[in-house]
Every structure is written in structure tokens, then in C-alpha cells.
């Protein structure tokens, strides 16, 4: 059993927190797991990419996942999804928050922000699932739960780590908002289950 996952977003969206939650959940189940984060300077807007590797008996040796080998990509917005698109294996799945963070430069219309079609074009036939994570999070009352929604969606698609272990790890990592985070997680999980019918 092996799972290689790229999580992409920009600073402040919880990419590293999500990676930690997943890694600890996998370790608690007895897997070998590690993640490597290219976080760069910790300031708003900067792209953050994380390479999560889970495996039994051992996860992949390199901290970085080779390009074209990731089973999943979880992206907190379209632009970051495009930045990491070549990591996805043929037949892999990208989960993208379709309402994620738009760079400041694109909000006033001075710069172009990729459309859904442009994203689908660079993914070149590999499957993309659009999850309205930020929207779901806002419906639950705060924008900070988008990461939990994405984790839920990921858990529904990949069964390598037990759902309950991820929730446990999520609650431990986010003690002050534990109930809200768990609710967002299940919302993401249900979103995928409903899609699959």
C-alpha cells in the first residue's frame, strides 16, 4: 500500500497543517509516513506545496515525490493546482477548491486568473473533482475550514487511512475549533459520497 499526495495552496490556507494531520493519522495506524513542505517565507499569498508520502512497510525514500508519480493532488485554488499539475500520475485525481483564494493582483482585474477550462486543459484528461470547499466552509460560519473540507473529500476518495483516524488527528491538531473542523470534514466527505451516488 502506498499513497503519494501533493497538497498545494498559498500561505495561510493550512497546507502544512493538513499535511501534518494526515501524516500523524497515517503514523497512528502504523504506516510509515512523512511530508516535506516547500513553504518559503511565511507571508500571505506565497505559494506553499507539500509532498505527503504514506506507505507500508515504508513510504517512498525521497522527501520529494517525483513528477508524474503523485496519486492525488489537493489544491486550495486553481492557480496552485496548475503549478503542481505535472506531479499527477496518469489516472490520478486532482481535488481542487473551485472557490479558493484569488491573488490580490487578479482581484482588480489587472492580471488574469486561470479559468476552469484552462485548468482542465493543463491537466490533459486526468480526472479533476471540483469541491466548493471555501463555500462550504463559509456556510459553516468561517473561511478557515476549507482545508478540513478538502481532507474529507480526500478521505472519501482514498481509503488508505481510516476516516476516523483522520478526524481524530484533526481534532487533536485543532482543539479550539474541533467540532467545526470535524463538521467541515464530514461535509467534504459527503460531497464526494453524493457525487459517487
Amino acid at each position, binding site marked *: 500500500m502506498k499513497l503519494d499526495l501533493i497538497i498545494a495552496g498559498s500561505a495561510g490556507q493550512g497546507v502544512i497543517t493538513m499535511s501534518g494531520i494526515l501524516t500523524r493519522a497515517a503514523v497512528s495506524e502504523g504506516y510509515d509516513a512523512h*511530508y516535506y513542505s516547500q513553504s518559503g*517565507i511565511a*507571508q500571505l499569498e506565497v505559494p506553499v506545496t507539500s509532498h505527503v508520502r504514506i506507505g507500508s512497510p515504508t513510504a517512498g525514500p525521497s522527501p520529494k515525490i517525483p513528477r508524474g508519480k503523485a496519486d492525488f493532488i489537493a489544491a486550495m485554488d486553481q492557480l496552485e493546482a496548475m503549478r503542481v499539475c505535472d506531479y499527477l500520475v496518469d489516472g490520478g485525481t486532482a481535488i481542487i477548491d473551485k472557490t479558493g483564494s484569488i*491573488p490580490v493582483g487578479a482581484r*482588480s482585474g489587472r492580471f488574469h486568473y486561470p479559468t476552469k477550462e484552462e485548468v482542465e486543459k493543463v491537466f490533459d484528461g486526468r480526472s479533476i473533482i471540483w469541491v466548493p470547499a471555501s463555500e462550504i466552509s463559509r456556510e459553516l460560519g468561517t473561511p478557515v475550514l476549507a482545508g478540513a473540507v478538502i481532507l474529507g473529500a480526500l478521505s472519501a476518495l482514498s481509503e488508505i487511512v481510516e476516516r476516523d483516524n483522520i478526524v481524530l488527528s484533526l481534532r487533536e491538531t485543532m482543539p479550539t475549533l474541533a467540532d467545526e473542523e470535524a463538521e467541515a470534514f464530514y461535509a467534504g466527505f459527503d460531497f464526494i459520497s453524493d457525487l459517487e451516488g
Partner: protein
Amino acid sequence: MSIHLFKPADPAKPAFKTLLGSQACAQGAHEAAVRLVTGYPGTPATPAVEYLLGQSGNGLKAEWSVNEKVALEVAAGHSWAGQRSFVAMKMSGLNVASDPLLSIAASGTVGGLVILVGDDPGVYYGMVEQDSRLIARMAVLPMIEPANPNEARVFTRMAFEVSEQTQAPILIRQTGSTANTYSKVQIDEPERLNRKPTLPDDLARYTKASAQDCMDQHAQAMQRLEEAGEAFDELNIVTEGDTKLGVIAAGSVWSYLEECLASRNGASTPHCLRVTVMNPLPDRKIVELLGRCKRVVVIEELEPLIEERVRALAHSNGIKVEILGKEQGIFKPTGDFDPELVELGLKSLEGADIPIEVSAPELGGYAPRKPTFCPGCPHRSSYSALNKAIRMAGFDPEEVMVTGDIGCTILGMYEPFSLCRTEVVMGASISLAQGFSYAGVTKPIIATIGDSTFFHSGIPALLNAASREINLTVLVLDNSYAAMTGFQPTAATQANSNDMVENPMSLYELSKAVRVRRVRRAFPYLTGRLSRILSQAIRSKGVNVIIAEAPCAARRQWKRVIPYSVNPNRCVGLFNCEATCVDATGCAAITRDEESGKAAIDQALCMGCGLCASACVEKAVGRNVRSLRRNGK
């Protein structure tokens, strides 16, 4: 390949923890009964020191020092008293500390002294891309490089043993891919040491009394280096394979090679030497490999340090063997490596084209992701006020020289402020500005610097400038923290934190004491007052210090926040507006409503600083003072 030099207390039930590579080093130091931990924030020091700050007490003292030079000196004093010390810093920090480093290396140590340094190939953290292995060589200090968190713990523990056994301070180098990897690490109970401090009593060793003493110290350092090299040699690992090709790979690159070889399913694997000890290099093992292989490829990031040694050893031992690496362009001299790059390099040996770079997706046409101040950041207000002040003083920002400094404050170089023109090293904004003044620049010269940066290295520069007849405005953006690295306290931080400063100092009194022409304090959110003060300073003679004081927005205990909102009846829409609030402030709390195309302010993100309200030309941004949001949530 795994190295287990320390058996767990109960081998049947090993304990585990999930840790970053940098934290695993700290865990190793903790297990080795380290007594003092010092450092200055920056990867990998931040997670390492914070990890031990969280466990301090019970015989362990940890502190954020004012800069890396001081951190190393404090630790060296502690070690010379016979106690174990651990110092952590980023590569730029090692440059700052290189003066004491060379001198301490010449004297050696008594108690174990281990220095963790991070290199950043690929420059993810935005400083000079440098190879600190060269500093180890210059300082005549042993240096080892773990490739994953488990090794980081074990190697650090071992480093303390070797440091005391050979009396050499030990450098541990981590590149970003090791320091920022988080994984399951086997841990152990800390050892217990209870040593009484001793005083050094050997002038020939601890002073630079005579030329002969200094030369003797140099020779002794070389002797210690050799002994440490032998003690660490078991970490340089030979993996038997097909001797048609020999591969020598360094530290962190080893795991990429493992990844490539694992995907080759059964094909013959080359004969490999993994170099873990970067100084001294394992000459004997290299020569042995050279003698057995037909071709040898060397894989290492940044400087061709091992490659050059391999070539020299082949030559001096009269071994005729083809040596491949950076010289042939197989591996690039800059940036970080990854598994594909190693794979392409190995393929080129079989006749494929020599790779220069793995291609990345083309995103040039899209909106750039430039770092920006957080919503409510006091620095955004300060830079806004500075822009206004320059115009009030009768100048155009285009003709004014603003030198920037390290930290969040450098974001003043980006739009919408576009003020800072230079960024060199900690504290250099002030000294660089003095140079521009000497160069005959008659228009205003302004240095902007953060508080932690000012304490780190800005103080000597301010002393230097203040003692001369020059015109200079120093804008200190004091937010009470080293914010960019994760809110570490500075020497002046009064707020409660896990490294409480016992005797916080005052930036205001310090500036007064150096007798600059004028020292003023201002609250940055009152941009009108700050810009008047700044404009007066810009027009004045002498050195002026203006301190813009407000705690970091991400750390401030906001009792109440009154967020702003946009009146959609007045807003003309972001794409139709000539001077938008987004472009004027670069604030992440302002979004564009998909349906109406008008500006909207995220009520959960807005901190109520009001810059957008003053920037809006349509007067569409306002707030209802009754819409209180308690506790910022």
C-alpha cells in the same frame, strides 16, 4: 539504509514522535543532555529552538539571542565551562557568526558544542544561495549532514559524543529537504548529566596571545578535525553494486538516488558511496571506489566540493577513471535537486541528452503571487504614511532613496508601495543609507527596518550614522516580534511568550542615548499623524529616528474589531475603477464579488485598519461602529 547507533531503553517498546528534521536534531540534543540552547530565528533554527523552549526547565535553558554571533559566543562560554550546548541558525546566520566560529574552532571546546546550520538550495526562504560546507572547511570544523529526521536525531546525539571526545565543535548541516521533512522519529529518554562548571586555565589555548600560539591552535584544530573524521567515518556508507558505474552522492541527495534506484526494478544497481561527513571528506573510501569503478559520477547540490576532491584524489593516486558531474554540465551548479533531476543525470550517462533543468508549468501569463502584508498589518499603514510623507515634503517617491531591510518590512518594495530599493543583510539598511549620503545624494534618504532586525545588527549602523554629520531618516517598524519567522520575541518584547525577556529594553531610550537629532514615536494606524512626523523628519537635518509602534496584527490581542464594508451603491466595480482599493492597499481582505463585480470586504478577515476607506475615490468604504466583532473572531 538505516543507522541505529543508540538502542532504545526498552528495545521491545521503542517510543516514537512525529518531528521535523530540525526538531529531530533538537530532540537528539535533548537526549544528549544538552544544557543550553541558543539561536536566532530562521529555518531550521526556528522549529529546533522552539521545540526545546517548549521543554525547557529541569536543567535545560533555551533562549532566542539577539543575533547569531551572540548566540554562538554565549554557547561557547557555556561549553568552555564544561557544559553541553546546542546552537541553531540559518546559513546567513552562520555568516554573521563566522567571526567567533573561526576563533572558537581554533580553541576547540570542553563540553560538547554542536551547531545546527541550514542551507537553502533553491532559495525557498529568499536569501543568498550559499554552500555552508565551505565555511566548515575554512573554520577547520567537522561537519556532518543527515538526510532525514531519524538520522538528524541520531547524528546529533553522536555529535555530542564526538565533540567531547575530540574537543572539536561540530557543525550539522541540513538542507531544506531534510529540515522541512516531517516524519516518524524514534525517540529516547534524555540522558542525565550533572556537571559543575569549570574555568578554563590555558592562555595558549583560549587567547590569541602570540603568533606561535595561534599557529599551534591552527595545527591542533587540524588534528581534532582528523580525529573527528575518523570517529564519524562509519556514517559514510558504501553500498556494493555493479562497478561499471560508481555513484558518490552527498547527504540529502542520497534519498533522491534511492528513489531512482528503487524504480529500476531489478536492473543492476551501481556501486555507491554515500558521503555524510562533509568535512573532512572520506578520502580513503573515495580512493577505494575510484580504484574499483570504470566511471564515477558525483551528485551533490550547490558547490562541486566533493567532485573537486574526487578529481584531485584520482589524479594524486594515479587512477585513470572517468569522473562525471557538474564539470560536464550533468548536474546544475545552482538550485535544489529532485528525484527527476538525478534520474535524468543518470540517464545521460547512458547516452541521453545532458539535462539542464526539469521543465515547470508555464504560469507567466497569470497573476503573480507576491507576498503581501496581512490584513490589519501596522507596516501597511506605515508604508502608506511614508508615501504620503514624501509627497508632503515636496518630493516624488521616484526621486527618494529608501533602503529596506530583512523581515516582513521588506514587503515595502512591492506594489502598491514600491518604496524599498535595496535589501542586503540584517541591519544594512542604515549603513547602506549612510553610503548613499556620502555618495552625494541630496534628495531624502530613508532607511526602513524592523525591530528585531534593528536589535540584531542595526544598532552599530545607527551608532555609526549618528556620530556623523549626515541627513538620514530611520523608520523603525516596531511590531514587538520577529514576525516573519513566526513571532519570536525580541529584546524589547514585553508581551508574554514562551521565551519571556526578563529585562526588556527600550528602542526609544536607546535611540535617545546615541544622540540622534530627533526621536519620535507614532501609532502607525493614525497615518495622518505619522506622515506629518515623517515629512518633518525628511526635511530636517541630521539623523532622525521615527518609531512606528504597534504589535503585529497576527499576534495582537484584539479586544474588539470593527470591520469595514463596501457600500455597493457607491462602488463602481473593481474592473471599472481607476484607482481601486485593492491596488492601493494590496489587502487580502478585499475580494471581488463574482456577481456584481464590486469590491467586498471579508468581514472575517478585516481588522479595521481603515486604509481602504481612505484609498477609495468613490467614498464607498465605511463602517458601522456598532458592528463590533469581539475577540477578532
